[in-house]
């Protein structure tokens, strides 16, 4: 086998696949990857189709939330206005922020990733096409239903960050807050599914030879974006679970008089919410890092430094959450730590800005529409960053907090940092997917109106805020000095909207999506997404030896299109792509990808139905949808993990296996990432548990002298039995004897023992008279049980699924990915359950007075 990594870049070795390619090879690829026609397109899973759907839906939500923004500006245009009622206004500003953040910003960048990454990395598709499609449909159905609550006057109205006690049952008794908690909580799950897809895709499906340090910066930013989602989103998912438990069942996590604390919500929310800003910004910065070198005609200056900056931002942004809470009475020194981290994160952000400026200076920037949007981004985002440094100073923040200065700052950061690059990206990449590029003339008009309109709308808000106008007010009296500034802001907002309309006209006139003959590389860019792309991705997958392969190898497009590189055919008769090693991208095996199907679509609709019906308290129907979702997922997964199909010759003398298990398998990687999500969720819970102890220790139980060991004995013994059965089934599967029935029985018994351990534990708490409604402490004990039950339920179902596959002959010593994944999740669940026992029984006794 050829050692790809050791071949020098300009090795004149023969191309991997012989030319000319056999007749019918390309047609066969086309047939295999052809999308279903008509309404059956909903069954398609190909990243290009799902990417289009995703981007269109995200943009629809951008427009809808933008219209809400215009309604806000109309209401505030003049003092004493009664254009909107106070109740409607509250719903509109809550939905504007919520939809922009959760239904537009994160999905839009995930959509860009799903559409662009495979092309950019030289893969035929991302590794879990049905998971990506599931994430999209769940988001689409859930998002639309959530938005429609506005038309029935039942939308949430507590602000996009939903602070209790305002959003608790006492002050928000309707179902508006529940829509937010269940609707958005569920859409976050869809974002996590997309993040897992992106992490495994970036690390394992790069073209041979594309080492981590040759990977396009956009892929780096998406890798870090997805990693941040894995650690940040569980915090807000936990917060939404806790608040919904409080609202539905009276578990007082956030009620101070019962030992809860509303500030716990703020900690959990902002532990997600601040990284969220960077989650949105980093991929947008990645887009800029792709556009600037192409337009300046030079490689990106400081590639390695930008990678350093991205990683540093990814970390430091988690140390900033309290800078949204400077006025909540936290000790001065603690505020100092967060202020210091806010200063530290400015350094890597600055590195990126200087690298872009240096790249522009090193080359000769061609002034195109994407360049204009990039310049607009640099100006606006830098201004937003500077006001960010201002509000990171505690004394200044005390003055500006909750005023229109903050509204101005966050729009400069988010609109400047994300929307401008997104427009640049749409203009830049449109020719890769459309028969015609977007119009330069209309684009310049759109940019001019958006840039001017944005600044006219938001620049005055800095002053409006500094002279005292608070945010979220429904109206204001005349004579405060705010009238002119507000009127100017409203005019600016409509100018901005006019720019968006010009853009829409441009899209309607010029975008003609195609995967047959797009306009192509009109910018003479250097990265792989500009090679001729089809529904099946590249005709053949090239070896990559540099960061801009199209600049280094002028004949590459022709060779790739002729099929002269790796895997120019379908070796197994189905959809497939090459899996490579995570650091150096050495080919490891050929992954077979799933094709169109109904099961993932049904699973998404049923999952959305489950959460949304729970909101309106239709518990029976919600239960039916839950069962439907689980059944659909089982059907979907039954077809996965196909049997090995022997070795595959991908060209260049490289023969790869068609199956892998254990740490080489992409599926194993996805399960590890999922375990990280579960661990982040549980760590967030641990933080909440300890936090309530520090603020309300008087609600913790007094010492009754009983040893913790006695009450833990039965559940711990059951956990041990469960672990022994897991190990026994693993050894049996590894062994030479073929005993699927016995292994299936062990799996069912072992997972049942895990569930039994948790059931006994809950029963013991109940028998002591502890009720979750009694106090924050008691609620936390039962919240632990809820989280444990969640993961144990997943293990139980996966165990039953694996047992069924064993009996059907779909798991054996070689074909064992389902078993390996179950074992990982099971082992994690055992560890988390044991830790939960120690925490809920040991810690109260340790600190009891």
């Amino acid at each position, binding site marked *: 086998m050829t*050692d790809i990594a050791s071949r020098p870049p300009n090795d004149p070795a023969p191309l991997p696949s012989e030319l000319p390619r056999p007749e019918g090879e390309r047609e066969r690829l086309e047939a295999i990857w052809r999308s279903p026609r008509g309404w059956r397109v909903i069954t398609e899973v190909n990243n290009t189709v799902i990417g289009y759907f995703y981007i269109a839906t995200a943009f629809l939500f951008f427009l809808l939330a933008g219209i809400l923004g215009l309604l806000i500006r109309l209401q505030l245009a003049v003092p004493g206005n009664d254009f909107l009622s106070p109740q409607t206004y509250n719903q509109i500003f809550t939905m504007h922020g919520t939809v922009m953040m959760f239904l537009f910003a994160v999905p839009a960048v995930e959509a860009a990733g799903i559409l662009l990454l495979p092309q950019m990395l030289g893969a035929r598709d991302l590794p879990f096409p049905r998971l990506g499609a599931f994430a999209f449909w769940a988001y689409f159905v859930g998002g639309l239903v959530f938005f429609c609550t506005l038309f029935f006057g039942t939308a949430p109205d507590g602000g996009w960050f939903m602070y209790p006690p305002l959003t608790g049952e006492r002050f928000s008794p309707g179902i508006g807050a529940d829509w937010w908690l269940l609707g958005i909580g569920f859409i976050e799950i869809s974002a996590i599914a997309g993040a897992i897809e992106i992490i495994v895709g970036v690390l394992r499906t790069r073209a041979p030879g594309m080492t981590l340090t040759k990977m396009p910066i956009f892929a780096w930013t998406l890798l870090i974006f997805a990693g941040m989602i894995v650690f940040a989103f569980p915090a807000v998912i936990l917060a939404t679970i806790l608040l919904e438990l409080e609202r539905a069942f009276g578990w007082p996590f956030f009620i101070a008089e019962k030992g809860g604390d509303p500030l716990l919500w703020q900690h959990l929310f902002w532990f997600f919410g601040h990284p969220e800003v960077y989650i949105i910004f980093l991929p947008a910065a990645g887009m800029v890092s792709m556009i600037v070198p192409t337009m300046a005609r030079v490689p990106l200056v400081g590639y390695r430094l930008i990678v350093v900056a991205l990683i540093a931002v990814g970390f430091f942004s988690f140390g900033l959450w309290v800078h949204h809470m400077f006025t909540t009475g936290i*000790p001065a020194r603690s505020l100092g730590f967060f202020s210091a981290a806010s200063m530290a994160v400015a350094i890597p952000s600055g590195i990126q800005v200087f690298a872009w400026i240096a790249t522009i200076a090193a080359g000769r920037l061609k002034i195109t529409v994407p360049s204009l949007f990039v310049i607009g981004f640099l100006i606006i985002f830098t201004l937003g960053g500077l006001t960010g440094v201002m509000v990171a100073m505690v004394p200044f923040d005390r003055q500006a907090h909750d005023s229109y200065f903050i509204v101005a700052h966050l729009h400069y950061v988010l609109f400047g940092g994300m929307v401008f690059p997104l427009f640049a990206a749409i203009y830049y990449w449109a020719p890769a997917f459309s028969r015609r590029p977007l119009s330069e003339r209309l684009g310049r008009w759109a940019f001019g109106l958006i840039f001017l309109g944005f600044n006219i709308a938001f620049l005055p808000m800095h002053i409006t805020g500094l002279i005292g106008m608070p945010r979220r007010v429904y109206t204001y009296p005349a004579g405060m000095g705010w009238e002119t500034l507000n009127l100017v802001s409203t005019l600016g907002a409509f100018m901005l909207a006019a720019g968006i309309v010009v853009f829409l006209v441009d899209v309607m006139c010029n975008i003609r999506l195609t995967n047959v003959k797009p306009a192509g590389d009109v910018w003479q860019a250097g990265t792989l997404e500009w090679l001729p792309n089809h529904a099946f991705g590249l005709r053949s997958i090239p070896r990559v030896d540099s960061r801009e392969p199209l600049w280094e190898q002028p004949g590459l497009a022709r060779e790739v299109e002729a099929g002269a590189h790796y895997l120019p055919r379908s070796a197994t008769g189905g959809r497939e792509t090459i899996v490579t090693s995570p650091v150096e991208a*050495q080919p490891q095996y050929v992954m077979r990808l799933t094709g169109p199907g109904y099961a993932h679509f049904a699973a998404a609709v049923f999952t959305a139905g489950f959460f949304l019906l729970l909101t309106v308290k239709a518990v029976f129907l919600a239960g039916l949808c839950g069962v439907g979702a689980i059944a659909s997922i089982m059907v979907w997964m039954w077809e996965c993990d196909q049997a090995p199909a022997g070795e595959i010759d991908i060209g260049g003398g490289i023969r790869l296996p068609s199956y892998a298990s254990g740490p080489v398998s992409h599926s194993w990687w996805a399960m590890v990432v999922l375990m990280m999500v579960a661990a982040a969720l549980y760590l967030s819970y641990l933080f909440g548990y300890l936090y309530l102890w520090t603020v309300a220790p008087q609600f913790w139980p007094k010492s009754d002298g009983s040893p913790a060991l006695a009450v833990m004995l039965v559940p711990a013994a059951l956990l041990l039995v469960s672990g022994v059965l897991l190990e026994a089934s693993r050894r049996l599967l590894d062994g030479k004897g073929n005993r699927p029935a016995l292994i299936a029985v062990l799996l069912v018994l072992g997972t049942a023992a895990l569930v039994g351990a948790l059931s006994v534990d809950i029963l013991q708490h109940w028998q002591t008279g502890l009720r979750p409604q009694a106090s924050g402490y008691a609620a936390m004990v039962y919240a632990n049980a809820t989280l444990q039950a969640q993961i144990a339920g997943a293990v139980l179902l996966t165990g039953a699924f694996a047992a069924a596959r064993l009996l059907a002959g779909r798991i054996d010593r070689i074909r064992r990915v389902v078993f390996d994944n179950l074992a990982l999740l099971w082992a994690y669940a055992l560890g988390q359950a044991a830790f939960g026992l120690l925490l809920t029984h040991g810690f109260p006794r340790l600190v009891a007075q």
Partner: protein
Amino acid sequence: MSRPLPLRAAATALVGPTIWAAHFLAVYASESLLCRAGAAGWHDGVVTAATLVALLSIAWHGGSQWSRRKMGGARHELARIAIALDALSALAVCFAGLAAATLPACA
């Protein structure tokens, strides 16, 4: 084919930021706990010790990466990235330490 580098070879670049995160958590959480225990005076010592340990650990890691700069393949690039991340992390640790030096605990 040579054995591919495992992901942990790249993950070593994350040591510096991880030390920063551990330091940050230690100084923030310890203040909450010491304030609750009525032992604010101890926090200066905790921050000083945590900052010294963090800086020394980062310096040790940076030093170990320094010798890898000349290696071939992806390793040398990853080593350079690790060194730069160590430097940024050390700076961020100093920032947090300075916050403690200038502001009183539990105030």
